[in-house]
């Protein structure tokens, strides 16, 4: 198993010959650090015309506050599916996810939405800005959904931070891809979420812009206490996180820490 590098300070137990990785407490994490996100044996099956299809099977891990975790794997491995389950956008067919101590499976859709409003941020591959709102209003959106009082000021500050202070009045259609993603990042960090999910945030950008965007993201992540879950198939990007989860064909094939 090449993905489990020799530099890994912890031991990943390989529990069966199908190289299924089981959850073990990571030794580089102090036990007193609270877990923000836990996957307890989650699986996802969908029914398709050709019968039932398993997209994710029996995945477990635990992520602590402040960690930055890369989820890697080839296209179709189930990364986005995993992300959706972790964020409560969808429910697993087996197992359960706890986010900030709450079992997502026990909440209804609105309950999960409220939990997200308070604790979760997103950055998507295709930006997903609301076309009818301008840059500033897009950033304000999650703040307002979470009921923050000073949404406008906070948003202005963070828009400055992502370098768009001149463009806040502009609508998504008037912004380039990189600029849109900056707005999306500002929006994601605006609420200072406990967990930020990013699904291939540079996938629709050219290499240079992508690199700038990632610099911005890691920069913001460093200065906040946010836990970052970054889905990417870019190995270099993954190495910039503290930890890498590798998926292949719905299986968690490795979980390793990255040397500082």
């Amino acid at each position: 198993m090449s993905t489990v590098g020799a530099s890994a300070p912890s031991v990943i137990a390989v529990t069966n010959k199908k190289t299924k990785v089981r959850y073990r407490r990571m030794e580089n994490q102090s036990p007193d650090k609270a877990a923000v996100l836990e996957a307890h044996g989650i699986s996802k099956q969908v029914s398709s015309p050709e019968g039932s299809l398993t997209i994710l099977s029996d995945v477990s891990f635990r992520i602590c506050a402040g960690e930055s975790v890369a989820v890697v794997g080839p296209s179709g491995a189930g990364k986005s599916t995993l992300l959706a389950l972790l964020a409560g956008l969808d429910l697993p067919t087996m197992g359960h996810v706890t986010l900030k101590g709450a079992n997502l499976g026990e909440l209804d859709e609105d309950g999960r939405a409220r939990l997200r409003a308070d604790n979760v941020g997103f950055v998507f591959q295709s930006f997903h800005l609301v076309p009818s709102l301008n840059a500033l209003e897009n950033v304000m959106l999650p703040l307002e959904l979470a009921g923050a009082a000073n949404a406008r000021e906070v948003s202005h500050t963070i828009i400055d931070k992502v370098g768009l202070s001149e463009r806040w009045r502009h609508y998504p259609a008037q912004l380039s891809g990189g600029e849109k993603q900056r707005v999306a990042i500002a929006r994601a960090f605006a609420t200072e979420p406990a967990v930020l999910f990013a699904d291939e945030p540079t996938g629709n950008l050219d290499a240079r812009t992508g690199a700038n965007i990632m610099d911005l993201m890691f920069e913001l992540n460093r200065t906040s206490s946010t836990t970052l879950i970054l889905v990417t198939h870019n190995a270099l990007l993954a190495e910039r996180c503290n930890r890498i989860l590798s998926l292949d064909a719905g299986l968690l094939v490795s979980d390793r820490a990255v040397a500082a």
Partner: protein
Amino acid sequence: MNAIAFALRSFGRELRSGEVMVLLAAIALAVGVLTAVGFLTDRIGKAVARQANEVLAADLRLRSQVPIPDTWRTTAEEYGLQTAETQTFPSVVFAGDLSALATIKAVSDNYPLRGAVRISDTLFGEQRVVEGVPRRGEVWADGALLARIDADVGDEIMVGGSDMLVSAVLTYRPDQSIGFASLAPSLLVNIADIPATGLIGEGSRVGYALLVAGDDAAISGFNEAIQDQLPDSVRASNREESSERAYNAADRAQRFLSLTAVISLLLSAVAVAMSARRFAHRRMDTVALMKSLGATQGFVITVAVLQLMMIGVLGVIAGSSIGFAAEEVLSWILSDIIAADLPDSGPMPVILASGSALVLLVGFALPALLQLRNTPPLRVLRHDMMPPAPSRLLVTGLSLAAVAALLYRSVGDARMLVILLGGIIVIAAALYLVGRGLVALMGRFRSGVGVAWRYGLANVARRGRSSAVQVVAFGLGLTVLLLLTIVRTDLLEGWRKTIDEDAPNHFMINIQPHELDSVAAIFDTAGVATPEFVPLVRARMSTINGESVKTRSYPDPGGSWLANREANLSWTATLSASNEIVAGEWWPADYAGPPLASIEEEAASDTGLAIGDRIVFVIAGRELEVTIASMRSINWDSFKPNFFIVLSPGALDDMPMTYISSMRLEEEQQSMLINLVRTHPSISVIDIDAILQQIRGIIEKASLAVQAVFVFTLAAGVAVLFAAVQSTIDERRFESALLRALGARKRTVFAGVMAEFAVLGIAAGLLASAGASILAAIVAVQLFELPYEFNPLLWLAGLVAGVLLVCVSGFVAARGAINASPIEVLRTA
């Protein structure tokens, strides 16, 4: 966050999206047509209501064809009732050498007992309520009358043998007849002036009336007391009775108008449903995003509904402006038919129209929006995730309920509603099938045309369902517009043409036997051939074959009316050229036997009379029995004096008779009329040309008004087309881009899209031309009694109008897609 704030914030931009514009337009149209029609029906309703309350200008009116005996008035006064007297008759008035037919309304001091007369001091001046009646020697004239004789307040006009001063413009009198007021505009005269005018002579047709008003008990007491004194010919009418007929007529007009509005409304509903679907679809991504960011279902649905409501409010504002404008246009068109001085309708039509807009939105847009609530948040990651489609039951249920609610307002009774709803479903299904048929028919030409047409035809066929709806929408609107154009031009013209060039254009009535010579002399002096004088005797049918006409049963209600009303009889030895015997035999010219009668064939069949039947007439208190010897058909368009019943020579000897006559007077000969009327004030001269022109004008205006309402139908059709194009615009963009990427020139792409609309336009034009031809044939034969002539121009007009209309609106709707750049292929897909 506050859903209202969010809904408001994003609304500005949403407004720019095509489907929101279409949604807005569809609602504005619905509100516009409802407001316009609402204003109109309100106007008709108010006119009728006012008429109903005031139509008698009294609580009770006794009408007679002979002067009212004094005893009736004294009886009324015994009951403590107020009384007034009126005399009403037609007469020609003159100013300079201009003349016009007027309704002379001679009134006594207390007139009117109910309601009030309004006058103004100048033409088109501010009107005011006036107490009392014109002073002796003065008249108040309807503005239309003054216009016709080019007179003004302060001028003298000639009424019979008297010159009278026009001292005010009469703008309203309570007992003016509803509609057609312009046919013979009123002249209010002091009753004391009438004898001096010499207008009323022996045998003159004058309506005498005694008006009575007071408290209910006294009225009914008087009514009972007077009944015994009233001869059969006197009609007593109270308010309820007199208003009933007016109400019925108005009710029909209102329902017809409301139903016209319903067609536009249904089309708008289709547009609303189509664009709401797209509205929802376009918002799915945003909704999924909002949900991923923590928005609840409640929030999502509140925002969507709020925005829909905002669209609704804007639509209502735009629509009521359109409605107000349309109302102005309509009441201008109809100003001669419906009194223009009615009080404003107030906000009611707008409120009702807004309510309907709400119903429309709830019924046709809400299901699509409710579906948004269940958009899976997972859609942010997987674009193909869709909310479950709204249940068919909900969609059909809600829209049917909405249609029923909207219809209920215009029909107002449950049974009618069910019939109508059923009718609409059947007709809509039939039209839809016709639309599909036309679309399929067009498709058959596919192999024989070039690439652009093939592409267009393929598109029409592929979107068969929405193509058919569009064909029907445009087809319906065009049908009615074409039909009414035919009525206004072809049919009216055709009818006019059936009138002989030399047909008489003037009638003289009320010529006394002793005046025949002097009238002939006036014609001689003027160098005009003296017309034939036809004798006329007024009679009442009393029995038919020994049975009273009152108790007899008639094959047709018209027959009862004919038998019971006062009849005009004439006699002649020779059959008039405009008559033809269809049964029995005409009497010989020197016939001198017992009285025979010849009856007009339709009158005979309505009254159930046959040859050999015996009729007893009462003429000035004397009985006369006649036997039916023949039946005639009459060409009424000859404009010669004609009678339902003509008697044999000698039958009417010694009866009190007057003469009537008809003649053709050329423009330059008409000045002789002044002399005639001055010397023979009791003779009434009627200008047929003027009356025909006015009837024509009224028909033209009424159909113009209905056409105006159907412009809304066409506009709704355009909205449907826009909605349909909008819902396929992404697909179209991609296709154009693909075609361009494959090497098609922009022109070819353009031609392909336009071919598609042209095909729709041709189909709609065919439907409209066929529909209008069939309806026109029915109208021609049934209403105008003209043989229908096939008019190829109509088909040309239908096709051209259909193609132009659909192509132009299609181009505007789809221009964005036509201009798609080939790069888009790479971006999408």
